[in-house]
């Protein structure tokens, strides 16, 4: 079973340009907001030590460029991700429409072991702004269609819901990592056709 040593959770934040990826990351890690963040070029990450379910974990949060054409470079950064955070701007309908392609592109490039069970979390950011273009209901419907992705409405500017959202992200990432560790532990000896030994998987996670 998974060891008790300190774990590193790799989290990737994706979404259209200017939805607030950098701001969310900085609000969560440094509890700071600035409207002077420059457009992200290339990629960068911040780390934060947190305790999740009594376990001490290090979250490594990756911030990437939002313009579509820079995504071909993503593959190098997506590798080994434990959770993918999709962000849209609740006042900008186009950023919501792009979610499908962000999700698909991530799955293609990161090619996780079990794409259908890979944890995503959706954040509808900028709820402090008016007018609202995407309702909570609409966002939740999208999440339901995608295998019940957890959804949070946040404001990086006001720090609203950011802590809660990232806690959920950490939990999902940890669950993902544990199930992957289980897979590693079990496969070399025998392939089990039942999933009774997999406490953290939501559904049938066996790839057979």
């Amino acid at each position, binding site marked *: 079973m998974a060891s008790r040593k300190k774990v590193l959770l790799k989290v990737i934040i994706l979404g259209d*340009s200017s939805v607030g990826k950098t701001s969310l990351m900085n609000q969560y890690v440094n509890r700071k907001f600035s409207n002077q963040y420059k457009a992200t*070029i*290339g990629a960068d*990450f911040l780390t934060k030590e947190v305790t999740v379910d009594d376990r001490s974990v290090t979250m490594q949060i990756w911030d990437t460029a939002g*313009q579509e054409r820079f995504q*071909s470079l993503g593959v*190098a950064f997506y*590798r080994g991700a434990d959770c993918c955070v999709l962000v849209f701007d609740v006042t900008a309908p186009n950023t919501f429409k792009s979610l499908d392609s962000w999700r698909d592109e991530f799955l293609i490039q990161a090619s996780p072991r079990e794409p259908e069970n890979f944890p995503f979390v959706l954040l509808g950011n900028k709820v402090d702004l008016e007018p609202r273009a995407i309702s909570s209901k609409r966002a939740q419907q999208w999440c339901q269609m995608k295998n019940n992705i957890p959804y949070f409405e946040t404001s990086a500017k006001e720090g609203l819901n950011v802590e809660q959202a990232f806690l959920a992200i950490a939990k999902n990432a940890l669950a993902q990592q544990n199930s992957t560790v289980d897979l590693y532990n079990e496969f070399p000896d025998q392939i089990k056709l039942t999933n009774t030994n997999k406490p953290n998987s939501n559904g049938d996670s066996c790839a057979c």
Partner: protein
Amino acid sequence: MGDSLTECMEIFSQDGVQLKTAQASFVNYLNLVGTLYITEYANSNCRRCLEWKPNDVTVDSDVQDQEWAVVNTVQKRSRTYSESLPPDSTIKPKLLKVNFVDIKSFKTSNKNRQLTLFDGKSEIMCCFMFQHGNCDYLITVLRGMLKTIPAKRDKHLFIVIHDESLEAAQLDKSFAELNIFQDPPPTLWKLVKSFHDRPYETTLETFAKVTDYVYRSPEQRDIDDDQRELLHRSLTEYASSHSQGDYEVIAKVPELPERKDYPRGRPLSAEQWKNLQNHEGKIEDVEQIKLMIFRGGVAPNLRYEVWKYLLDYFPWNSTQAERQKLLCEKNDEYYNMKLQWKRMTKVQEDNFSDYRERKNLIEKDVNRTDRTMDFYAGDNNPNLQLLYDILMTYIMYNFDLGYVQGMSDLLSPILHLLKNEVDAFWCFVGFMNKISSNFDIDQAGMKEQLQNLHTLLGFIEPQLVNYLDKHDSGNMFFCFRWLLVWFKRELSYDDVMRLWEVLWTGLPCENFHLLVCVAILETEKQALMENNYGFTEILKHINDLCGKLDVAAVLVKAEGIFHQIKEAEHLTDNIRMILGLPLVGVQQCPEEILSTSPDSPDEDLYERVYDSMQHVMT
């Protein structure tokens, strides 16, 4: 070449073979996938050949007119290449052909998915990647047709033996003559002795020792040129065949010339600038002025004027009167384009999603470009409107490119300096013309630069490149931000202006900005390797250099590196191509390059002006 007319027989073929490396004239074929053949010509002196043909011949595919480009090692061909044959020359070979007699060794790598052929003169003839499966069968066929021996130290390397009697006699002679040395070390005696008994095995075993002997004791090397050349060739072949692919470098790699310091000069002053213009306001010696800017940059109070030349807004040879006329024309042209988007109706916009998307992106980026600078700070700052208007007009100027993130960073210092919408626009156009490939939709330009950076760094710091490769960082993505906006995010405003104006001169070579990267990475080598950084730490370390770089020091180093590369004996055409240096043809051996290739006029001038400036400065 008459071979195409003689009857030929196909002995072997394998498809799904990608061309990875070849001589310069095949640059357009690199990375194409094709079929590899072994053919036998009934009536020819080079009977058997290895031939590669791309699957989709999209260039000049006149089937009737078969042009055969023979990759051979005959040195007469190199003359044509020293004339700097452009990569997209009109002669488009359709078929890459290597005569068996020219293959001196070959090796497999990457789990036998890659095959590299060597010409025995320190150069790779060509390298193929086998996309479907491996080259095992081909190797079997090759070894059946060529007499080969596997190298002792590398079971993937095969030395081809062509004419045993001749070659053995040559080596025999040269080593016998080595006996005349005063007090040769015992290893050499032993070598000569066992060489007679087991010539080839002994050669391979003892080359490394001979390397040491030859390199370490130049004062004892009173041997004539023939012997030296023969030894050198064999040694470089051995070294190069061991420094390719995934293998540790075990032989002594050729050394770079000593690094020299090229101290920075003073910025171009208003007085110098004035003196270099004639009575009509024409710049008389453009190259000299560029060189002065390269060496020292431009005095801040003169940038307003000089940048317009550096960014190809004003032609260098224009007179004052011509520039006045040009200003009027460019003014009209700009406002015409600006009106095009200003007049776009809502319906037009609604029906033009690409345009809407670009407009939206510009709006967002303008609001987060250098807002900490006074010039762009505060709400409703009119300069933000200028930034926006110029970028929007650029969309009209270049529909294909449109707006890509990073462009606002490139425009910001230009507008800040010129404080004039029209001038800033045209200067921005000039800058974009220089680096538009950074913004390709498929990122091809960026990928190519990252690859070229890897190649250049490998030439200067093979150890570091090896380290990066082994730590998931061989793609050099950690330099992406540096390259995309030319260090705009890493440097202060003043420093970035200095760096850009130096780079805009295009001196001392093409892609000098990559050597700037090499210089910084070389400085960081120790930090990266001693801390045993992996992919994430390397990226973090490089990102964190922001605000810590010393532009002048980096430029001194980069220039030193340029001269080291230029003067290196083992300089390859691949590197020459990246830096825009005249090609000499891959077949030529290093000694010849040094003795026969004339310095280009630019280089001459470079030395001349550099010397004169040294005098002025001291």
